[in-house]
């Protein structure tokens, strides 16, 4: 065995703390190590070329790279091994950057000791590493997209256009998500519904997209190339192919329900169409609010429908589908401002959320006012964002700009309006944002840097009294406002929470789902074949959402396009000479990847490597030592221990 050890300086990231010379000397003394080198950047092309030529010249057959985390550059070096004609699994990395120089900046001597130990762990493990080969697995071209907002729509269209079969599942009666509720988009002020609506109809018409609205994913099992999803389809009691959207049914419906699409500012009927641009373009009977389907109870709508589109004999269905990859685009909910009682939302009638204002502005513009909000208007920024008290420390990224947009639109509707935006910091980081903000300022929107502690209502006229300290001029601004708009931030949606429990993907501390790597895998998750698109991953605006959705589609295509993928080689294996058939491994395997095989009187457990994901539960539980995990066998783990104790 001829092991080569490479110790990286990482341009000072490691060598500023760790004494590289000492680490090199230490590595040289280890058994089977024939060459030790240190280098500024082993991951660079030049660094890799050095390793490649050493492998040839010194006939190295195993390599240890003491550098950064294997989760960071592991793939790079594994590919390097392949170029050298060596198996990528006879390579080990010692993480002397993230877990040594960076973690122990204040302890250089101890960091050096630790670097030696970590290198020794890697050397001890590589000695016992054996080449592993990756099995080729077939993969189809079916994708489940969960969530029909702009992220899900964009991902579905990209995938559909590329020839992949898409199931798009949306829990509401229409796709479109929050974007459909917006008045205009910043900073270009395109009409949101106008630009979204064609995409929605494209989805409906797309031959490769199967749209499942009013539906929910209730269970998912399986793995890349073979995910099995169970989808609950709620009955709408209306046949979309017959419904002409005449609205006769609605007219006779006796039930009034707060209209969700208008954020409760108006009412809808129990049989309704959420919006004019709804896709599928059809009415939905909301059974929870309906008086009843029996003629005795009501049944007025069915009689009113000339097209005979209403059918009361519909039942909830479940549908089982098998897909190869999954894109999660379950979006966001707006922060519930009732969680900040100081702002009086729900208590004072003239305190509204920004999303309510989106609906108001749109109606105001078309002359169909939902509520008159007066002329003196204040925006309070960062409601539910950047607030440690309620554990929402993150910035929601869109509120500064949507407040700017809404202020502009309000002024455009009535130029005499006096509008204040009370902000924490104004963040206009995107393309055209700063210019947009400057324009609003020029148009007379007043930006005041200061947070209000409380809102009070003048009981006589229902006007709202605000006291804000302008932290730039150190002056106190006090005034009565007709309306106060709370610029509420984004929080992970209820749907996101549900799907997280179903898919078991990680989340970050803010509750949004976690990407696999913040820089290089921003739309991947740690589960193979599951991707994130849009605000499910964190607050973002429409262009970022669309970009991410397209990225998620591309990442999914990357896996599926070849028709096969390489399976994880770190699987379990069971020594049939030792296995006595106790069945413990079969019982603990989370993937049902182990089953008994019999040969005459002999009975032993056998691993199906196609199903095995390589967790090693079986090896950890096997009472006879027959079950082992490749690349992490018991002897290797013990050797790693021995290297440090």
């Amino acid at each position: 065995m001829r092991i080569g050890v490479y110790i990286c300086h990482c341009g000072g990231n490691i060598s500023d703390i760790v004494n590289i010379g000492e680490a090199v000397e230490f590595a040289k003394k280890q058994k089977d190590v024939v060459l030790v080198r240190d280098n500024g950047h082993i991951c660079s092309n030049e660094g890799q070329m050095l390793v490649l030529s050493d492998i040839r010249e010194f006939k190295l057959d195993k390599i240890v790279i003491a550098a950064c985390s294997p989760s960071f550059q592991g793939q790079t070096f594994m590919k390097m091994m392949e170029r050298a004609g060596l198996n990528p699994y006879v390579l080990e990395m010692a993480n002397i950057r993230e877990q040594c120089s960076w973690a122990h900046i204040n302890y250089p001597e101890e960091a050096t000791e630790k670097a030696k130990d970590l290198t020794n762990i890697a050397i001890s493990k590589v000695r016992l590493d054996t080449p592993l080969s990756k099995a080729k697995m077939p993969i189809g071209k079916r994708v489940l997209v969960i969530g029909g907002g702009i992220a899900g729509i964009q991902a579905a269209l990209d995938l559909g256009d590329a020839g992949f079969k898409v199931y798009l599942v949306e829990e509401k009666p229409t796709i479109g998500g929050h974007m459909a509720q917006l008045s205009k988009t910043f900073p270009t002020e395109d009409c949101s519904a106008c630009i979204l609506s064609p995409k929605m109809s494209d989805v409906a018409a797309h031959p490769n997209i199967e749209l499942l609205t009013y539906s929910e994913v209730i269970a998912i099992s399986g793995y890349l190339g073979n995910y099995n999803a169970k989808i609950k389809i709620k009955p709408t009691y209306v046949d979309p192919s017959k419904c002409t959207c005449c609205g006769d049914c609605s007219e006779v419906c006796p039930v009034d329900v707060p209209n969700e699409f208008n954020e409760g500012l108006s009412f809808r009927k129990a049989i309704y169409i959420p919006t004019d641009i709804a896709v599928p373009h059809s009415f939905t009977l909301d059974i929870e609010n309906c008086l009843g389907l029996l003629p005795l109870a009501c049944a007025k709508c069915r009689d009113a429908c000339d097209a005979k589109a209403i059918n009361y004999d519909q039942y909830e269905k479940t549908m089982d589908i098998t897909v190869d990859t999954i894109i999660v685009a379950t979006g966001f909910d707006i922060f519930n401002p009732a969680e900040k009682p100081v702002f009086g939302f729900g208590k004072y009638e003239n305190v509204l959320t920004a999303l309510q204002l989106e609906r108001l502005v749109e109606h105001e513009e078309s002359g169909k006012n939902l509520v008159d909000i007066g002329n003196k208007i204040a925006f309070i920024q960062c409601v539910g964002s950047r607030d440690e008290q309620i554990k929402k420390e993150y910035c929601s990224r869109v509120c500064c700009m949507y407040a700017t947009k809404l202020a502009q639109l309000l002024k455009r509707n009535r130029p005499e309006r006096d509008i204040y935006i009370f902000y924490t910091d104004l963040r206009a980081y995107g393309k055209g944002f700063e210019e947009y903000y400057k324009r609003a300022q020029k148009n007379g929107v007043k930006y005041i840097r200061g947070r209000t502690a409380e809102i009070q209502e003048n009981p006589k006229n229902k006007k709202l009294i605000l006291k804000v300290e302008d932290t730039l001029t150190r002056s106190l601004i006090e005034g009565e406002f007709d309306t106060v708009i709370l610029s509420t931030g984004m929080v992970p949606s209820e749907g996101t929470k549900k799907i997280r429990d179903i898919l078991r993907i990680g989340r970050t501390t803010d509750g949004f789902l976690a990407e696999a790597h913040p820089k290089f895998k921003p739309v991947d998750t740690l589960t193979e074949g599951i991707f994130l698109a849009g605000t499910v991953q964190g607050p973002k605006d429409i262009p970022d959402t669309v970009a991410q959705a397209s990225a998620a589609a591309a990442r999914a295509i990357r896996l599926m396009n070849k028709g096969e993928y390489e399976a994880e080689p770190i699987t379990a294996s069971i020594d049939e000479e030792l296995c006595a058939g106790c069945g413990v491994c079969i019982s603990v395997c989370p993937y049902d990847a182990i089953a008994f095989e019999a040969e005459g009187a002999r009975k032993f457990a056998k691993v199906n490597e196609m199903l095995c994901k390589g967790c090693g539960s079986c090896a950890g539980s096997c009472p006879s030592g027959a079950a082992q995990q490749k690349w992490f066998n018991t002897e290797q783990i013990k050797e790693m221990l021995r290297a440090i104790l």
Partner: protein
Amino acid sequence: MSKPKVAFYWCASCGGCEEAVVDLNEDLLQVAEKVDIVFWPVALDFKRSDVEKLSDRSIAVSFINGAIRTREQEEMVRLLRKKSAYVAAFGSCAHIGGIPGLGNQFAKEKLLKLIYEDLETNDDRTVPKPLSKADGNELEIPEICEYVRTLDQTIDVDYYIPGCAPPADIILKGLTAFLKGELPPKGTVFASDKSLCDTCPLRDKKPDKFSIKELKRPHEVIHDPEKCFLSEGIICLGPATRSGCGERCINANMPCRGCFGPSPRVYDQGAKILSAIASLLGIDEEEIASEEDVSRLIDSIPDPVGLFYMYSLPASNLGDKRRNDEQKDNS
């Protein structure tokens, strides 16, 4: 040609291993004809000085049962090692520590205090000392070692005849190997390399995939003789124990307690069965159980050391630590 010399010796043991030799019945007579028994304290009147007189390695094989608990035992096995060509650890106590090995849960002083001072049934509260005086005479009794050791933690051992006590067929297999001179590689345990499940009569009665809801002790439940103990929630060490015993316990409707020791690739039998059982216990509800539920379930297991390490504590990672310390004490 003279007959091969054979010795039997007992250390910390219950005497069951001696019984096991006698239990060979007529076979024992056949063996006795072929060998010259030079030392067997339980049956024959030879003294230590007789052994000392033998030349080194002149005993063909010494069968030593019992764990090493006293200095006298230590001295005697060292002497027998010197005089024997081969040494076989006979029975669980010599092999892996056995029941006396459970004493390793406590330091020597604690044990002595418990047994001679605190135990209510003991009227005479004198703690025995290696040297004492009675009626004007000096008395010497063997000193108790700090911890119990297996035979191979004390002297070099060539072969192992496992079991509490070893069954007749395994003893005969061992004896025959010596008599015929067909010796397997050093370190061989005269038993199967697979664990007990392989030969268990209940193996095929067990569902392939099973879970344990709650653990039951054998006296708490009427066991269905048609069902696998473990799948019924009765702790059975069979999956972590070498086969070869003839499934005596299982056939008597009792679960395996592990007397044959771990299978060849396993070092720590107790830790292995512990892992298997903890993995299966409550597995059906693991996703909804709170950490308190889990703690309650785990705490419901009585005396885990006694249960999982009933026979193997001195030979385990836990027992080893004591041994290392003792070697330090000696040096």
